[in-house]
């Protein structure tokens, strides 16, 4: 590990040793990750779907089960952090982490209407939801390049 990498790691460790504990001090705009599947890399997306939408209902039993195993939800919380990082301080790490997890989901074939042969390209965007007065507003803060669903960046 280089000196620079060590310093970077220590910088990541310090907030844990001297925490500020300011949970939910303000309710900041909240990110959603949306994805679209495209036939070609040059297509313009006409519809976006929310990635990992929450279920309509969750029983008390399921909530209690999640006390012991909540991998999928905790990954969703990590995706939220990545989306916030990507908006405030864009890095290759954040976008690649999001992309990797979207691709993994597509491979598991749990995403609606995914057909790797018909729509082999994908793009994601970040939409931030916030309240202005009584109205909810949505703002797109980031649009990714077009990627091959199973390959590298196309453009």
């Amino acid at each position: 590990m280089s000196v620079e990498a060590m310093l970077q790691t220590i910088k990541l460790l310090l907030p844990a040793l001297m925490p500020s504990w300011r949970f939910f001090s303000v309710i900041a705009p909240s990110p959603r990750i949306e994805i679209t599947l495209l036939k070609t890399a040059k297509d313009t997306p006409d519809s976006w779907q929310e990635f990992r939408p929450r279920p309509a209902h969750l029983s008390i039993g399921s909530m209690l089960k999640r006390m012991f195993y909540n991998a999928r939800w905790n990954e969703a919380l990590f995706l939220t952090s990545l989306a916030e990082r990507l908006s405030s301080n864009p890095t290759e790490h954040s976008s690649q982490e999001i992309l990797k997890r979207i691709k993994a989901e597509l491979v598991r074939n749990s995403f609606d209407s995914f057909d790797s042969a018909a729509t082999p390209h994908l793009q994601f965007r970040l939409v931030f939801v916030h309240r202005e007065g009584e109205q909810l507003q949505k703002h797109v803060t980031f649009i990714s390049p077009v990627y091959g669903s199973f390959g590298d960046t196309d453009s």
Partner: protein
Amino acid sequence: MSLDYAIRLTEILLALAFIQQSIEHFRAPRDEQRLFIPRFILSILLLFGFQTQWVCLALVILALFILRRFQGPYNGGSDRMGLLVLCCLSLINFMPSSLWREYVFGYLAIQLVLSYFFSGWVKIKNPEWRNGQALRDVFQFSAYPVSEALRTWMNWPRLLVVMSWSVILFELLFPLSLMTPTTLIIGLVIASTFHLANACLFGFNRFFWIWMAAYPSILWLQQRIFIVEQL
């Protein structure tokens, strides 16, 4: 509660929390498995008290690799608390005297108290928390409610005001629970109920287990202060 007993209890609770977290990564990509399967094994060793000094040190080194892997905490505040508990336990093992061990364990206890107090302080300063709007926003559009059905809680403004003030007062008044052993037990029962509610409503299950791991430190510190005052 003796210092040694409180430390051992912390090791056991931290090991259980790390085991729970590690299992959640068993189906993750291989590079994550390479970090969390060793963490699982080390946590089992910590649970049974095998070479705790070196196991804790190994867990700290592994935690640094995990921090690098995710370029920060994977699970925000719960990872930070986990790191704090782990670093304190590791430091305790290498302290030259019992007094220094007490300072380090006391630091963990104070951070636990501050984790509640400062969270309450930043909320009471915010008018949107005082009038219930902040909690309404949490339910209406934040990423945290675990189901769409929970978003309908935004339609219960009076309930949200009561909930907001309950959270604010509990967090701000938590330090007062240190006054007697009984009030501290009551405070910790309320605190764990609060974490349980957060786990059910917002999916913060890791917070519940990791904050529990820090509770022995505050139980020990309260007794330490209480006994010194009686002498």
